């Protein structure tokens, strides 16, 4: 049998298209990840699998490292929302530093090293050889470093600087999800609770969305809107009006 272009087209439609449909039905085609990190042979969550998309709350849940420890050790704003702040957000807060090996960005791997030292979970980083001075001091104050570790890390520190000098002092900060520039700006990560905290009343919420405020207020407003079959882009701007 001679195979022509039309047969290949059909094969692509049937195998790829049909395969995806079938896999979706069998729940084998998820385009989002399970957020739990993988475990080590000892049954604890592996630090190596800590991800930039993990929030401080998830770090607390999986690694038993309190969000307040990370906030304090890295000099984040005390009111940082652990439920929303992702590790990768750090790169939008801290200035990259020039080290011997080149430019270093305080981000997920920095937290991995911190977690490893704080919780005594083995982790060898291939990119973090220096830590922020503030973080090392926090580890020493909490008696988390052995003599050898203390000696090494005290000699391998750098000063943390904020990209926005007003980060710690501004009454609101854009990286804490809800922006306040020319009114309320609702982003994809804004929760319903944050809308209420901002001053959106139940009446206003119902007027804009056509739905009552749900019991679970920590869900993202976008997910809520999409679930209700509404256009997030259209609805979100109505709050600013």
């Amino acid at each position: 049998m001679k195979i022509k272009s039309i047969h290949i087209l059909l094969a692509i439609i049937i195998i790829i298209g049909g395969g995806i449909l079938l896999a979706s039905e069998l729940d084998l085609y998820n385009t989002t990840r399970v957020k739990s990190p993988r475990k080590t042979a000892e049954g604890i969550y592996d630090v190596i699998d800590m991800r930039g998309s993990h929030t401080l709350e998830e770090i607390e849940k999986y690694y038993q490292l309190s969000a307040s420890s990370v906030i304090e050790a890295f000099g984040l704003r005390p009111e940082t929302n652990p439920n929303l702040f992702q590790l990768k957000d750090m790169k939008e807060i801290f200035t990259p530093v020039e080290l011997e090996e080149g430019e270093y960005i305080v981000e997920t791997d920095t937290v991995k090293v911190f977690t490893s030292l704080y919780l005594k979970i083995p982790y060898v980083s291939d990119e973090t050889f220096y830590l922020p001075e503030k973080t090392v001091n926090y580890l020493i104050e909490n008696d988390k470093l052995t003599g050898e570790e203390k000696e090494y890390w005290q000699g391998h520190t750098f000063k943390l600087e904020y990209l926005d000098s007003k980060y710690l002092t501004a009454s609101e900060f854009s990286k804490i999800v809800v922006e306040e520039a020319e009114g309320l700006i609702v982003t994809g990560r804004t929760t319903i609770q944050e809308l209420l905290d901002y001053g959106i009343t139940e009446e206003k919420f119902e007027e804009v969305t056509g739905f009552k405020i749900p019991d679970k207020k920590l869900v993202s407003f976008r997910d809520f809107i999409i679930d209700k079959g509404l256009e997030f882009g259209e609805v979100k701007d109505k709050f600013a009006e």
Partner: protein
Amino acid sequence: MIKNQKKDLIRLAVQICFFALIILVSLNQWRSEQGLTPLLIGSPSLHAVCPFGGVVTIYTYFTEGAFIQKIHQSSFTLMWLIFSLTLLLGPVFCGWVCPFGTVEEFIGKIGRKIFKKRYNNFIPSVIDKPLRYLRYIILMLVVVNTAISGKLLFSNFDPYFALFKIWSSEVTRLSLLVLGLTLIGSLFVERPWCKYLCPYGALLGIFNFFRIVKLKRNEKTCINCKKCDRVCPMNIDISTSKTVTDHQCISCLLCTDEIACPVSNSLSFSLLERKNPTENSETDSGAKIKESISGGGK
């Protein structure tokens, strides 16, 4: 029977569809990050729709039951679907689906206009042949290092990711450099990334040795015009093979009698061994054609 060369419009349409799909995925990622509603298909990441993600996580999946960072179940499922398609028809994914290959091919059309016959023939065979195996070394390095590190290292130099997520801070300078060199290289060589560097193309290329539908040349009717050699984007010597099993074939069908080959039933993809009762008469017609057409060199 001699016929004029046809255009491969069906393949072009498929390529444009998949290219548009990836552009939509990329656009939706951007919209999602801006707090805007994704259009039509939600906002899966580029990694989620790349079957190579399934390959690099295969070790971690079978040893630890988990996917590596940034890789999703969809990549793993796509990997098996593409393996099935490739087992049947060869690396159709490379020639028809891969949007990065499509971009290379489109740029190649400009190169072909500029350099005409010299296009895709710049690299001497002595250098070209061994370089074709470089992609297997890259495949091994990527798979082994990903298994060891548990990280998606390939994205650090992946030009596909760099091209379709160029606006993102996740794109490394190295991948932008690889992307730039590949796009420039495409002006001189057809599909340079696919030929020399693509680890996924390397893996799918292995299927050419045992694929079910094979590219077969009928030696008795072939008029040795070498048109198949000239149109092959991967520079395979088709005119000297009875069955093409070259690891670089991308199943584009350009060489076949559906498109380039001027003699019907001389070069085609066949599911079963050809038992043509009219072979003798075709031999005659082939002989007649041979008399009327002078074979061209590559």
